[in-house]
C-alpha cells in the first residue's frame, strides 16, 4: 500500500482545493502591473503567511498560476498580490476588477529568514517584479525597525515607468528608516535618478560581512551576478538568500514541474540559501 504524502501547507481551504476570494481593491502600479487586494468570500480567518510565501491564484475558466504574497503579514484579513500580465492567466489577473472572484489556495513554500536577519544588517536587492515578494519583508522590518541594524533596499528596473510601489519607496526613502537606492537600465533625459545596473550599487553599501544577511529577488541572471557581487564585498553564500520562480502546478511537491536539481521550488523554496542553489543555477539544462 502506498501512502500519500501530507500536503506541504495547510492552505486557504486545503492544499489542493481553491477557496473563493473577491477583489476588493485594485491599484494599477504600471501599464501592465496591478496590485490586487482580496478578501475571502463569506469572511472567516485567513491562514497566516510568512514573507516570501506564495499562493496559487485561479482565474475561473482561464487557469492557475503561483503568485507571491505582497501584502503585510500583520493584516490577516486580506490577501494582496501584484500581477504583471505576461501569459494568459497573469494577464487575466492583471485585468481583474473590483468585485471579481478568483480561487486561492495557499500559502505555500518557505519564506525569507527575517528572524535570522534580526540583530544585524539587512540588504534587500530586487530586480523588476522581484520587489513584490520582498515587500512583506519591508513591512515586517518597519514594524520592528529597532530589531535591525542598517536596512538597505537596492532596486533595479528596466526604465523609470515600470518601477513598482513608487509612493512607498519614496516614503521609505524620505523617512530615513531604510536606505533605498534605485537604478534603471535606461532613462530619458528627465530622469534624475541613477542609470546603470543595480548590482553596481553594492560596493557603496560598505557591507559588514559578519553581521549582514542579503535577500535577492529578480530574474535568475540578475540574481547570479548579484550573488557574485555580494561575494566580492565579502558576504558568504550562507548569508545570501534567493527567491526562485519556476513553473509550479501543484504547489505541494507532488507533480515535479518546478523541480530544480534536487529541489522542489514550491515545497523547498521559493526562498533558498544561495549555497544550496548556486551549483544548480549554473547548469544550463536545469
Amino acid at each position, binding site marked *: 500500500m502506498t501512502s500519500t504524502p501530507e500536503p506541504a501547507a495547510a492552505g486557504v481551504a486545503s492544499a489542493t482545493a481553491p477557496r473563493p476570494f473577491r477583489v476588493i481593491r485594485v491599484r494599477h502600479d504600471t501599464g501592465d502591473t496591478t496590485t490586487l487586494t482580496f478578501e475571502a468570500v463569506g469572511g472567516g480567518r485567513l491562514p497566516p503567511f510568512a514573507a516570501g510565501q506564495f499562493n496559487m491564484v485561479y482565474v475561473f475558466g482561464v487557469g492557475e498560476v503561483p503568485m507571491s504574497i505582497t501584502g503585510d503579514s500583520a493584516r490577516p484579513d486580506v490577501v494582496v498580490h501584484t500581477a504583471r500580465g505576461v501569459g494568459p492567466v497573469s494577464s487575466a489577473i492583471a485585468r481583474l476588477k473590483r468585485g471579481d472572484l478568483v480561487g486561492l489556495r495557499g500559502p505555500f513554500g518557505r519564506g525569507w529568514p527575517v528572524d535570522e536577519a534580526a540583530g544585524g544588517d539587512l540588504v534587500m536587492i530586487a530586480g523588476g517584479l522581484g520587489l513584490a515578494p520582498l515587500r512583506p519583508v519591508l513591512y515586517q522590518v518597519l514594524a520592528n525597525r529597532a530589531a535591525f541594524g542598517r536596512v538597505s533596499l537596492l532596486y533595479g528596473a528596466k526604465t523609470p515607468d515600470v518601477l513598482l510601489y513608487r509612493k512607498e519607496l519614496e516614503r521609505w526613502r524620505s523617512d530615513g528608516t531604510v536606505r533605498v537606492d534605485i537604478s534603471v537600465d535606461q532613462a530619458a533625459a528627465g530622469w534624475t535618478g541613477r*542609470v546603470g545596473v543595480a548590482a553596481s550599487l553594492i560596493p557603496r553599501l560598505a557591507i559588514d560581512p559578519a553581521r549582514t544577511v542579503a535577500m535577492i529577488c529578480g530574474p535568475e541572471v540578475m540574481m547570479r551576478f548579484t550573488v557574485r557581487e555580494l561575494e566580492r564585498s565579502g558576504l558568504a553564500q550562507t548569508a545570501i538568500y534567493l527567491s526562485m520562480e519556476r513553473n509550479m502546478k501543484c504547489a505541494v511537491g507532488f507533480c515535479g514541474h518546478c523541480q530544480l536539481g534536487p529541489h522542489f521550488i514550491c515545497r523547498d523554496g521559493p526562498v533558498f540559501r544561495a549555497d544550496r542553489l548556486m551549483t544548480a543555477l549554473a547548469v544550463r539544462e536545469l
Partner: protein
Amino acid sequence: METLEPLLAEHPFSRTLQARHLQVLVGCASNVRFEAGAFLFREGQAADRFYLIREGKVAIEIAAPTATLTMLTVEGGEVLGWSWLFPPYRWKFDARAIEPTRAIALDAQCLRAKCEADHDLGYDLLKQFALMVEQRLHATRLQLLNAYDVNA
C-alpha cells in the same frame, strides 16, 4: 598654499596608484564644479580632460532624433571619461550634471605627455582605466541582456 593632493588621495581612483604617480597627477589637476544642467562635455568635442567625481551626479547621454537617452550615471567616487586616452581624443557622448557636481579635472594633454615620458606612470594609469573599462563593459552587457524582462 594648499594643493589638491588630499582631495586626489581620498578619491577611490587614487587609492591603488603609487604615491609618486599621485604627485604627478596633482600637477595636472584642477578643482571644478558644475551646476545642475551644465554640460561637462559634448559629443565630438576634444577630450582634453577627465574627471574624478567628488560629489553630485553626471548623466552620460546620447541625443537620438526623438529623445535624449541616459545610458549611465556617474557619481561621487567614480571616474568620468576615458576618450582622452585614445586617438582621436574626442568625446563619444554628452556628459551633463544632473545635480550640483564637484570634481577634480585632470588635464589630458599634460597627463599624456607625462605618460609618454614615464611609462611606469602610463602603465599605472592604464591599469586603473582598464579595470574601469572592464567593469563598465560588464555592466553594459548586463544592461543589454534586458534581464528584468520577465521572460529573460
